[in-house]
């Protein structure tokens, strides 16, 4: 049999394994991106003009916004109206056609997250994927996930830093610990909120009603994990970066003066999908699932691995477990 003249070690020779893993994740995210671009194309023409004429964002609330009731008091009729209005506003302001959903918690599901500290390499892919998924602004920069570079041998945050800026990770002698909202079972933020704008849902996710929050920041003070973010100014997200698949309690457009945080991507996870951070992780350090399913990875991790939580002495009972494998 004649030998192939192509060298097997040619141009598209075997990539390194890590590159392969990265490429898989990239392909996945790009596929989602192309769908978004298609949806966006639907409104680009009018959007360009509208966006240019917006100027600085309107500060005063509309009458409807001013009188809007707390999320728990909204009827289905109210929600339909409100979602349509928000979608219209986004379309007018940015030219992007969005869809706001309000998936209810799935009966019998209790979410939990596990993070493998032996495997996390501090790549921060999760941070950026979360930002793209949840429409987090770049200016001012808001990021729900903070990856701490820890000194090996210590879980003390005083000696850790989130600001590592390295050529390559992981760095010898360090390990990496991402922190985001732990959706605690005994959440100090929920206790602190004077108007009940944040609460814990039946599936475990602690949510914020952005239209009810008065911006007092008591919850930011109360959180022991630095998980909550406040909009000190009006968040700006470039129209081409907007994720049109939005949830009322998760990644719909927020405004200045309100608090927000990780919601375990409830607009995805309540429909069976994985959170964006998990899908972006190149090393498979992140695991997510239903605590009530004995076959889920999360259950197996909790049952077989030595999991621990942060600030355990504060009895916040987080749903975010760390372990070394």
């Amino acid at each position, binding site marked *: 049999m004649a030998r192939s003249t192509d060298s097997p070690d040619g141009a598209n020779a075997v990539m390194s394994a890590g590159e392969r893993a990265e490429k898989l994740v990239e392909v996945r995210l790009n596929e989602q991106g192309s769908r978004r671009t298609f949806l966006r194309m639907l409104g680009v023409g009018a959007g360009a003009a509208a966006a240019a004429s917006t100027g600085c964002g309107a500060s005063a609330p509309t009458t409807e916004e001013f009188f809007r009731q707390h999320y728990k008091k909204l009827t289905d009729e109210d929600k339909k109206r409100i979602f349509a209005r928000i979608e219209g506003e986004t379309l007018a302001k940015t030219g992007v056609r969005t869809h706001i959903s309000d998936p209810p918690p799935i009966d019998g599901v209790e979410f939990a997250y596990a993070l493998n500290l032996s495997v996390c390499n501090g790549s921060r892919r999760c941070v*950026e994927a979360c930002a793209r998924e949840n429409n987090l602004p770049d200016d001012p920069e808001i990021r729900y996930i903070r990856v701490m570079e820890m000194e090996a041998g210590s879980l003390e945050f005083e000696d850790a830093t989130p600001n590592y800026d390295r050529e390559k990770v992981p760095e010898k002698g360090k390990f990496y610990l991402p922190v985001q909202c732990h959706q605690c079972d005994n959440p100090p933020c929920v206790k602190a909120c004077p108007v009940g704008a944040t609460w814990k849902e039946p599936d475990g996710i602690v949510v914020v009603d952005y239209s009810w929050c008065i911006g007092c920041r008591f919850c930011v003070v109360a959180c022991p994990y630095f998980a909550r973010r406040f909009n000190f100014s009006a968040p700006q997200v470039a129209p081409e970066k907007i994720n049109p698949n939005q949830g009322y309690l998760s990644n719909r457009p927020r405004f200045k003066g309100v608090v927000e945080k990780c919601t375990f991507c409830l607009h995805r996870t309540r429909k069976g999908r994985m959170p964006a951070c998990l899908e972006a*992780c190149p090393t498979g350090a992140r695991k997510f699932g239903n605590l009530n399913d004995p076959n889920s990875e999360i259950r197996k991790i909790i049952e077989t691995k030595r999991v621990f939580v942060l600030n355990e002495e504060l009895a916040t009972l987080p749903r975010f477990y760390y372990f070394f494998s």
Partner: protein
Amino acid sequence: MWIARLAVLPAMLGLVSCSIADEPSRLHTTHAAPIPSGTVSVLDRRPLLPTYPCSRCHEGRTPDPRERTLTEFHTQKVLDHGTQGGWCYRCHTPDDIDHLHLGDGTRVGFNEAYLLCGSCHGDKLRDWKAGIHGLTTGFWLGDRERRSCPACHDPHHPKFPLMTPEHPPARPRTAPVERQEAQEESDGKEH
């Protein structure tokens, strides 16, 4: 009640899911050992191997079992795996080049490489089967895909490669930092 919901969800997922479900390379492979949960599949590795099937070149050739540095083909396959040394035919089968083999000689396909890896790295195999180790994509409620070990760990030099991290978080606007301090922080020094 929630079981009824489970039946409906796959249909719902079809409506809202993105192209994960349409991924062309997803195949259910046959497994020598069962993987828990029938909704988990292992991605087919063979389309990702540019030189597969090996028999395209190796059929009809006499295998040369002498341990040596390759100079003509597969020159990038410098073995850096473990301390026992070893050579290509530790895992590749000279007279059945499209398969790998276990310690006792049992043939194993490229899609079942995890069995070979697991014969030394048993605890990793146990964790991988449970879904604790390794990258999972798909739906937590629905179909999930996992990857066999070589998808992330090149068996010839398995150490997971270093990556360049994304940019660090923006400093608080009231506390911009001098470059000197930032560099020291990066180096882990106290100033």
